[in-house]
């Protein structure tokens, strides 16, 4: 019964995605995710790695509202809607009939020193099914050692999952002046490593923005220059990219037998290599 109920829920989702297996066709660099608006289109392989979201699936199966704790991320300057409002809209579009409730918090400070502790408090207060965590920027700017960052992040993600809560990680942005920065790239890699090890979905903001930056120089100018235009675009697209990652991950999570899902054990798909 439950599985059938899930199919009913999933049908519109699949329709929205139209190409649910796009991530598996990662080898085709031209295949953009059709669920995305024109300016945000990035091939799935460069946008995310999917993994199971057991707690989210359990909430959906029971018809409960989906409580999400969104950490970090701000609106693009002058945007009509904030990041949490956009994320809520994008998710409710992808998952019709599901009530999405988003608690959006800033988490200043470094994961490697203090911020991870503060995150625990937030998680306890919000009691979410899912934590969408945009992470790494502060540690990168503070020049935190990548290994210290990785172990602190890994511990924090493991803690959240040990309490039956799902996690989606979002890595830091791409910008030209940081592209050759070794330490910065180590932080971006560390987020990816943790996502793979802890088997949680990852929104690859760095790769996605890199793709968008190389794709086109056209479009409106920005009075502060190209990097700032790219950054605005990244902020505008973030909600869509996160929503697509969650939706894709959900299509690969089977409905749980028991009402309360424990931590997912295996990702259905491994991390996908970016072409080129």
């Amino acid at each position, binding site marked *: 019964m439950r599985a059938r109920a899930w199919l009913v829920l999933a049908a519109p989702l699949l329709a929205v995605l139209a190409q649910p297996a796009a991530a598996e066709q990662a080898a085709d660099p031209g295949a953009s995710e059709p669920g995305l608006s024109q300016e945000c289109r990035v091939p799935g392989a460069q946008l995310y790695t999917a993994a199971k979201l057991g707690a989210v699936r359990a909430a959906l199966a029971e018809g409960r509202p989906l409580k999400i704790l969104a950490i970090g991320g*701000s609106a693009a*300057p002058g*945007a009509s809607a*904030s990041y949490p409002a956009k994320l809520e809209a994008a998710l409710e579009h992808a998952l019709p009939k599901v009530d999405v409730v988003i608690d959006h918090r800033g988490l200043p400070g470094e994961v490697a020193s203090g911020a991870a502790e503060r995150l625990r408090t937030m998680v306890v207060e919000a009691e979410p099914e899912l934590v969408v965590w945009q992470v790494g920027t502060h540690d990168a700017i*503070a*020049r*935190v050692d990548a290994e210290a960052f990785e172990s602190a992040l890994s511990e924090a993600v493991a803690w959240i999952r040990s309490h039956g809560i799902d996690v989606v990680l979002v890595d830091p*942005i791409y*910008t030209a002046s940081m592209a050759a920065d070794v330490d910065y790239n180590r932080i971006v890699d560390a987020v990816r490593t943790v996502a793979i090890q802890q088997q949680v979905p990852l929104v690859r903001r760095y790769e996605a923005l890199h793709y968008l930056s190389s794709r086109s120089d056209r479009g409106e100018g920005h009075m502060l220059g190209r990097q700032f235009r790219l*950054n605005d675009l990244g902020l505008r697209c973030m909600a869509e990219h996160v929503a697509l990652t969650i939706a894709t991950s959900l299509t690969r999570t089977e409905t749980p037998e028991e009402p309360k899902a424990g931590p997912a054990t295996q990702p259905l798909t491994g991390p996908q290599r970016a072409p080129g």
Partner: protein
Amino acid sequence: MRDPNAIDFWRGFALITIFINHIPGNTFERYTFSQYGISDAAELFVFLAGWSIGIATRGRDGMPEPPGKSVVRLLARTVEVYRAQITVMLLALALIAGAALLLDNPLILEWHNAGNFFADPIQSVCGMALLTYQLGYFNILPLYVLLIGIAPLFVLVGRFSLLAALALSGSVYLASLLFEWNLPSWPGEGDWFFDPLCWQVLLVLGFVLQGWNLRSGFLRRWTRRLFPAGIAIVLLGIVLSVMEIRPDPMVVPEPRLLFTFEKTYLTPARLLHFLGVLLAFAPLYALLAPRIGRIVGYLSQLGRNSLAVFSMGSILSLIGQLVRFQTGGGLLIDMLVAGSGLFGLGFTAWFVEWRTRSRSSKSRA
């Protein structure tokens, strides 16, 4: 200017510690006492602010000044701290925006929650004036504004009974822990990083203990007797923080804030640890003062001008972070950043005192 004393010395010490801790990742961070205990320099700073209110609202003879005068005095101080907070926020935002432009690097805009300001200046500028919009590492001054703002209430109650003032403050503290009361952040969701409803208890404690300390030898006798307990608590704090042992907030029983180590709510564990630190280190000043006169003089000068030094420290630590970021850090850079920071703080204190002196001599002329 008043002579070096224990209060100014420890205040200066807290200011230096906060400055170093606000440049995350720097080499010297691991040598600050904050890394070796449950509580840190923020507790020390707020407690000493309360103690100083006790001193400031009494005459030289230790008798309380007229209540009206104390209220106006604290109101004037509140305005001063508020002005400092607004100035520091504006400069911090300008530094972040300026660095992003200069280095052509929009990543910097996301720093310390500043991204919200640049994305939504209309709401954020209101939040800035209301103190509900705070940048990461820039959240002590808003707490301080509020604490000094509500201090007259406790000072007035304290005129009748210091115990009543402490009881009132303690009840607000306990209720805030039980019901998780905090002030909201806006724009954006969430609460204040330093919950004023909890942290006020430390300010009032400082104020009340100053009064008791003055009045009788009872408190002084007991601080001496409890010295071993203080040492034991400090040692326990070192073990817990070095081994990273702390309660899991998801697992502790309700009401959970009685059991966790959260800085936001100044939970009982932090408060107890701070009192232990106080007991253990209170006798230290008398031992240090004759031996390291120069350092005592320097730290006391910082402590005498704590608001200016704190404000400048916030700005200098942000500049230090930018320098570390752009250069990639390293021991040499860290020494340069910390060294010029310590010099800058000393210069700030000297400058404020010089300005006060030259003004008062001019008005006399």
